[in-house]
Every structure is written in structure tokens, then in C-alpha cells.
């Protein structure tokens, strides 16, 4: 048997080492392909998929689940989207609470908890993000995926150098080509992200959605956190909701959707459908650039000593409570915001009320925790 030279042995060892690391990483990565367990509650009358509105999404990871909740009394229709950005967990969780817990008294509520379903199958590279996080519920500890901001590269590749938003031709960073909230109104023969956006537009039209709410989160240093962003046609309703929320000691700022920033839900849904769109943001430290140790704990507790230091220094404006911005608070804010918007809508459009029941109040969420409201 010929004797191997030293450099060959080193090369083989490196190859074996790389194979082991790749296999372990690959197995871990593939675990994210497994869908999160959703346990629909009594309020859900039908479960569908986004591909019902655009068959092109069938058998793709963009084919998100759609949950339909319907009341005994007639009324209007609301759409609630979580997971437009899968790394903005409170949006996904608030939508999940609606699916697993709430009941519609009047009208209909359509919920898509993981709107950018593809983005839940990976995390953003170089951010040290956790792949999942635990939530203790009555049925045991459930884990949910923490996804990326946009869709998975594996599902839509490659990114262009410059993304030309359709149909505005607005130029954005190439990365944004996989961002669902830059893809509206979408098109049936476009990229998969554009097709998903197209399907959501079709859903809004076919289901005759009156109020459409897109749930987001942002870094504490982002100027528009704890805000409700709306199209000009939702301005009065949002103002009513902001004032109502203030009575619950929840402060929100009201922001208007810029007409010249295209592709966003609050702009395109409002311009191209009958729906009145709203987008809500909460403050999520794990998304911020000042954060320290990045872990599932940070995602759930929202507690970060470096943000606390930033607040105390007073050098920069950050929306961060020195006690932390826990997930339960962020979810509670979203749920309170949804209720306030639907109440404002129902009060204004009395002939098409949309009334939700069994939704925990902000106080209940803070006291009992998120897990208490999941099955």
C-alpha cells in the first residue's frame, strides 16, 4: 500500500472535518423545514392555503396556511397577517393567538399567521439568530421557528444586484426581491415572492376584505416602532384607535403611508383594493444593532443590558423599556391594536361590524403570559 504524503493526509482530514460540520449544520438547517404546529381553536371554521388564490404557489414553500374565523352574526371581513417578516415574531404569535383562541362574534376574520412561509425555513446569515424559541403552554413546551426577514434563498435564487419593484420600477437593494412587503401588488408570472403578494391581493379582493392588518416588529432604534401606519383612507379610524389605546395606557404614534414608497402592504392594499390597510410595529431588541448576546432568551424576554445602557445614556432615542420588551408585551400590544382598530371600524361602519371575542386583553397577556393563550 503506497504511503500517503503528509499534505494528502492533511487534505483528507480537512475534507472529513468539513463533511462532518456540513452534515451537522445541514441536519440542523433542515429541521427548519418542518412546519410549526398550529392548533386551531373553536373559532376556526375552515383552513385553506394561499394557493387557492393563485395556483402557482401550490407545492412551494410559499403556500402559506390560511385560517377562516366566522361569527354567527353577519358583518364585515378583516384580514390579519403575521409573519410577513418571519423574524418579527410578535406578529406571528399574535396571529397564532387569534387562530388558537379567538372567536368571531360578528363578521369574518381571515388569518395568515406565516404570510412569508418560505422565510420561516431559514434565518438571516451572520446574525447569530436562534432557529427556534420555546413557549410554555398548558399542553407542554411548544417551540416555534424564528425565521429570516425575507424568503429563503433556496426558494428564490439568485438575488439581482438591484431589485426593480414591480410595477413602479422603484430601485431597491437586491435583497429586497425576496421581501414580501416590497412585492405588492405582485404578479401571477413573477418571482415566487411576487406571486405570494399577488395571491394575498387576490384573497383581499375575493374575500371582500374591509380591514387588513399587517403585523410587524422593528429594532428599538427604528423611528416608527409602537406605531400604527395607515393609508390615507384609514387615517380617521387609526386616530380613533390610537386614542382608545391611550385609555389602556398604550401609547402609539400614528404614521401615514408615503405615497412614493411602493410595494408595501399599507400602500398597495389601500390603493388597489377596497380594504382599509393598517400596519403595526412593536419594539423587538433582537432585531437591533445595539443588542448583545443573541439568543432565544433575548427573543422571549426582550431584555438586553446594552439597550438599557443606551436608554440611560440618553445619547440616542431608542424605544426600549429598561425592564425589557418581552414577547408577551409585544404580542399584547398587537392584539390590543387589532381590537382597537376593529372597534373603530365597527363603530364607523355599523352595518358591517367585525367583533372578536376571547382575545386576551393587554393586561391579561402581561399577567398570564403568552403560553396561557395558546393551546
Amino acid at each position, binding site marked *: 500500500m503506497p504511503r500517503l504524503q503528509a499534505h494528502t493526509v492533511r487534505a483528507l482530514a480537512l475534507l472529513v472535518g468539513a463533511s462532518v460540520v456540513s452534515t451537522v449544520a445541514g441536519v440542523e438547517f433542515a429541521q427548519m423545514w418542518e412546519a410549526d404546529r398550529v392548533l386551531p381553536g373553536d373559532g376556526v371554521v375552515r383552513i385553506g392555503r394561499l394557493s387557492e388564490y393563485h395556483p402557482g404557489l401550490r407545492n412551494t414553500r410559499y403556500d402559506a396556511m390560511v385560517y377562516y374565523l366566522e361569527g354567527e352574526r353577519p358583518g364585515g371581513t378583516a384580514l390579519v397577517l403575521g409573519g410577513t417578516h418571519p423574524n418579527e415574531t410578535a406578529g406571528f404569535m399574535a396571529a397564532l393567538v387569534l387562530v388558537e383562541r379567538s372567536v368571531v362574534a360578528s363578521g369574518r376574520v381571515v388569518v395568515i399567521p406565516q404570510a412569508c412561509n418560505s422565510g420561516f425555513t431559514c434565518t438571516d446569515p451572520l446574525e447569530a439568530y436562534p432557529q427556534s424559541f420555546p413557549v410554555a403552554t398548558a399542553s407542554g413546551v411548544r417551540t416555534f421557528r424564528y425565521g429570516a426577514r425575507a424568503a429563503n434563498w433556496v426558494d428564490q435564487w439568485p438575488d439581482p444586484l438591484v431589485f426593480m419593484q414591480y410595477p413602479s420600477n422603484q430601485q431597491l437593494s437586491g435583497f429586497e426581491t425576496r421581501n414580501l412587503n416590497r412585492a405588492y401588488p405582485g404578479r401571477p408570472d413573477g418571482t415566487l415572492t411576487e406571486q405570494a403578494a399577488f395571491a394575498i391581493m387576490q384573497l383581499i379582493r375575493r374575500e371582500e376584505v374591509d380591514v387588513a392588518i399587517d403585523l410587524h416588529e422593528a429594532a428599538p432604534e427604528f423611528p416608527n416602532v409602537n406605531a400604527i401606519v395607515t393609508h390615507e383612507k384609514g387615517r380617521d379610524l*387609526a*386616530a380613533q384607535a390610537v*386614542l382608545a389605546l391611550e*385609555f389602556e395606557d398604550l401609547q402609539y*404614534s*400614528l*404614521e*401615514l*403611508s408615503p405615497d412614493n414608497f411602493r410595494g408595501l402592504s399599507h400602500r398597495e392594499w389601500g390603493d388597489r383594493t377596497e380594504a382599509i390597510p393598517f400596519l403595526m410595529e412593536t419594539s423587538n431588541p433582537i432585531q437591533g444593532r445595539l443588542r448583545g448576546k443573541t439568543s432565544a432568551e433575548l427573543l422571549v424576554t426582550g431584555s438586553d443590558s446594552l439597550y438599557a445602557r443606551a436608554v440611560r445614556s440618553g445619547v440616542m432615542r431608542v424605544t426600549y423599556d429598561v425592564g425589557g420588551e418581552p414577547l408577551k408585551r409585544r404580542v399584547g400590544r398587537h392584539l390590543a391594536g387589532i381590537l382597537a382598530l376593529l372597534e373603530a371600524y365597527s363603530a364607523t361602519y355599523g352595518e358591517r361590524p367585525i367583533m372578536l371575542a376571547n382575545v386576551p386583553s393587554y393586561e391579561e397577556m402581561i399577567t398570564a403570559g403568552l403560553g396561557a393563550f395558546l393551546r
Partner: protein
Amino acid sequence: MNNAIRLGAITALLCSCTLLGTAEGDLRLKEPVLITSAGQSADVSMAELLCKKAGVKATVLPMARESDLKEVKTLIIVAGFSSKGLGAAGVSREEEMERVQGMISGAGKNKIPILMMHIGGMARRGGQSDDFNKAAAEAADCMIVVKQGDEDQLFSNIAAQRKVPLHLVDKMSGAVVPLKELFPKEEEKK
């Protein structure tokens, strides 16, 4: 001559009493009211809703110009910057500041009192907002400010220096009370 001096002195005394009265919070404002923005935040919509709750009829023109001041008896400037708002209005920060200065000077020329409202708390303070906050506060005849936005006493200090009434309220909804006081109904005036 002596009579003329006496008349002048009495007039001056009456004027100063009126001003003192104003400074102590007796300012009474009249409709029609124009609400505009300084910084294009959507807080103008909140101000409109608060006015409605206070029974004050107001027209909202976030991008109002000096020419919109005809027939107006009170100008409400809602201070606070919003990048989204500027984008929605399609103007730059500099253009917005120029417009605000134009409105302030137009109100001065037409002797229209300015009520400044800062109701967005800390979200409408700091870097981008404070130029607009200061411009509006330094021209105001009266201010309504949500306390959270005055933690560093920016507005309190300006109000004290300029001797103009400042209504600090705990929450946005609290602005309804001073609005009702500032715009008394006819029967209340009697």
C-alpha cells in the same frame, strides 16, 4: 397735552393688563380654526379628533399655505417630525421648514393667534423633530403639550421665556379639556 399723556398712560395700562391676563391663561380663541402640521407627522389627525371631541370645528390642511389663512381666526400648528409623513407629502425637510415659517409669518401679519400642540410625546422629540417643535413653540400664543414630550422642559422653558400659557396634559386625550377652555362656546362666554 396732559390729557393726551393721561390717555396714553391709561391705554398702555389697559394693554398691559390684557397681555398679563393672556399670559395667565385667559386666552380665548375663536373659530374658524385651521390645523396644520410642522413636520408632517400624522398627529394632525389626532389633533383633529381631539378638536372634534372638544366641539371645535376645524379644517385640516397638513400642507397649508399662507393663502389658506383667509377667514381663519385661529391657527393650530401640530408639531412633530415624521419621515413617512414627509414622504407622503412629497416634500423635503427644508421645504417643510420654509412652509412652516411662511405660515407663522402669515399668521403674524394677519394677527391670527397660534395654538401649538405637541401631542406625540417622546416619539416626536429629538433630532429631526426639535427644529419644528422650537419653530412652532417660539411663535405660539398658547401651547398644549403632552407631558412626556416636555421631560427636558423644552416647552416649559419657551413658554416661561415668552410668557405664553402652557397647558401640560398627562395624555393626548387630556388635551380636550384645555381645548374646551380655549374655545368657549357662546353661552359659556356669557
